[in-house]
């Protein structure tokens, strides 16, 4: 009888505790404004983080995603899209959140490891099955008659990485001669029949609409296209040289504070560096930054010569001003 009574009391206590926990749990909604090809990555990551956060705090987190060309997304946030976090394609676009909106502190990049880039990627080629145009390196891409698909660097972060990778290749093979590098990328963009505003749009153009001989693509996007979007129809070609893309992440302090989401937004980004998240990153064909995950997925990624933007172009601010600002090199070489 005593045991029964004790069991009842304990059960009541547990139920009461559970009820209190449920009653005190709150629902939190975050908005993650990201660039085009991260859709699948963040679908997986959001589920993992929500589970983690609920276990840790009892709160239920729902993460809404917004995707588009990285530059376009940055402008949307500056214009009032109230993102709690921004996970964009390149540091320059995140810088604009400080420069033009004062939405984040100037030293935002120091707040997380690896300059706030929890994953990296690079640019590769996606060609038709069997590589009928025999495209192996950047020199092949600029040949007359080759149809190249790449998005608009004015709106897409991936497109800027594409452009800079080609430019870096041209510099290397022309003794750092800027004029020849300009001529090289000029030839490349003469081969571009259509400019999408974002990387996912270009993938659609190449894979689904069947346009072009080669797609200049994010590595993760190329893997995704090869295995899922265009399985059996396309294959990846790795150029001899490409660029190390470091997509950064940041809490958008002003909006996160306004929503009362500062703590959860910060945790959301910090958890990207966890073992679980780094594994998700690898599974989604992004290059993990943690040693363990990098080693685990080492065989997945081709080994190639990767240059850094700081080394070749003097950093994003300089590269943006020289190449992508109005009247910059891209405007000079691209003929509509």
């Amino acid at each position, binding site marked *: 009888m005593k045991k029964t009574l004790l069991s009842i009391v304990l059960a009541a206590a547990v139920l009461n505790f559970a009820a209190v926990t449920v009653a005190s749990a709150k629902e939190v909604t975050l908005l993650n404004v990201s660039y085009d090809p991260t859709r699948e990555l963040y679908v997986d990551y959001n589920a993992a983080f929500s589970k983690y956060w609920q276990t840790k705090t009892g709160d239920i987190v729902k993460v809404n995603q917004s995707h588009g060309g990285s530059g376009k997304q940055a402008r949307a946030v500056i214009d009032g899209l109230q993102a709690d976090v921004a996970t964009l394609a390149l540091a320059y676009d995140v810088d604009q959140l400080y420069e033009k909106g004062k939405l984040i502190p100037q030293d935002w990049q120091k707040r997380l490891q690896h300059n706030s880039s929890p994953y990296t990627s690079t640019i590769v080629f996606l060609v038709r099955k069997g590589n009928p145009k025999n495209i192996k390196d950047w020199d092949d891409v600029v040949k007359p008659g080759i149809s190249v698909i790449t998005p608009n660097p004015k709106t897409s972060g991936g497109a800027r990485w594409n452009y800079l990778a080609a430019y870096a290749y041209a510099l290397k093979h022309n003794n750092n001669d800027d004029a020849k590098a300009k001529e090289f990328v000029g030839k490349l963009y003469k081969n571009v029949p*259509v400019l999408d505003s974002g990387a996912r749009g270009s993938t659609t153009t190449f894979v689904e609409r069947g346009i072009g001989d080669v797609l200049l693509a994010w590595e993760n996007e190329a893997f995704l296209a090869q295995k899922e979007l265009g399985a059996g129809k396309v294959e990846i070609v790795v150029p001899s040289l490409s660029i190390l893309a470091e997509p950064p992440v940041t809490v958008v302090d002003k909006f996160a504070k306004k929503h009362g989401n500062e703590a959860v937004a910060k945790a959301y980004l910090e958890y990207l560096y966890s073992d679980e998240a780094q594994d998700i990153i690898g599974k989604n064909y992004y290059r993990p930054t943690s040693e363990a995950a990098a080693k685990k997925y080492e065989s997945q990624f081709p080994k190639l010569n990767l240059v850094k933007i700081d080394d070749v172009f003097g950093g994003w601010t300089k590269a943006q001003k020289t190449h992508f600002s109005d009247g910059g090199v891209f405007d000079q070489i691209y003929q509509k």
Partner: protein
Amino acid sequence: MMQYKKIVSALVLSGLVASPIIAFANDSAELEELRGLVQELNQKVKILERKDEIAQEIAATAKKETPVVNTTKDGFGFQSADGNFKIKLRGLLQVDERNYSNVGGLGADGKNISGFDLRRIRPIVEGTVYDKYDFRFAPEFGEAKTANATSTSGIVDAYVDARFQPWFQVRAGKFKPYVGLERLQSGGELKFIERSYVSNNILPNRDLGAAIHGDLLDGKLNYSAGIYNGVVDGGDNSTAQDTNQDKEYALRIFTTPFKDSDNLVAGLGFGLAATHGNFKGTTTASGLPNYKTAGQESNFFTYSSGVFGNGNRDRLSPQAYYYYGPFGLIAEYARVSQDVSNGALSNRLDNDAWQIAASYLLTGEDASFKGVKPSQPFDTEKGGWGAWELVARYQENDIDSGAFSSGTAAGVVTTTRYADPRNNARSAKSWAAGVNWYLNQNVKLALDYENTSFNGGGNANAAGTAGAGSFIDIANRPSERTLFTRLQLSY
């Protein structure tokens, strides 16, 4: 873009492409060349299709972000793509030609003041922010020739209206207090060129304050409760700060109980409004009104110098309208009970006014409280004649007999009160008839004739003499007659 596919198919199937295939079927080089040509054309078609697809995406995105410009019969305006911010530019222009005879019943022929008059010149900005918060800003550049006008321009309306719920809305700023029925009718939708004594002489015109208001019972019951700085009868408060210690409180309830039915009383509305305030004027700032004649150019009653408001001012106004087909009727009564003092003498005076006005649209349009929409705008080429409306009104404004001093046959004041009966009428009674021609919803021509007769107040120039002009035998002022015409543009 499908046409490009058709072109390719046609080329393949037509003699242009098919003939060489048949003619040189064994020539593999030619076949390869043709295959390449078809592939090239196929790519070009796909590129054109994709460019069109992207252009449509860009256009769809741009449409979501592009402000919308509206130009309609209701005015000009623009709004943000998400509809959160709206601006409407409106205006009201009234060009009058006014003819007076015996202005104010004081014998003047009125020629010196007859002529053209810009009664209302109002560029109006209205808008809505975040769907629920309306605002209105209306300056006035007209009104130079109305009696007691202190300036020729000013701010008529400047307020914000927060529509939290249909039944709970809050308005604050300078606006028409929710009191008078005819006063709440827009200046561009009046049946007569000038409003009645009820609106112009008794009830407040505009005031500074805040009010809650809303519609209940599916819009059949409208209520409002407001607090205002307080204005004299017929007054239009300036935007200056309040000059007395108390506020004026106003309540109004108005119902249209049958409005959704289709019977004879569907267009019936009636209600009751009241105000209360407690004001203490001075001999130099009396806080008391003057009462204008129907022509708005002269006063028929003015309190004597040194008389001032000294206590409560309460107003009560039952009001109603009725519309059935082309027929319209508005009836309104207002009484103001005002505490006044003159030296050691104090009293509570009850002045009142009422009007009944009927309208009939000869061209058959439905009459309503909110203007007339001609079924056929005036257009000589298409044969439309606009809307024609006949209007008639009777109105009175009566002064409390306790306001007047009395005296001897020789005109000597024996009992000092608050107004001299020799030069202030005890009442004004006016009948009017007119015609309105609505050329379209925005342009109107109007013609009104109004005759005002007075009780007393006709011996001001003969005071102190025996016979005519004495207190015993105070003559009535001769009647005032006015003929007004108006060209109005409102949008």
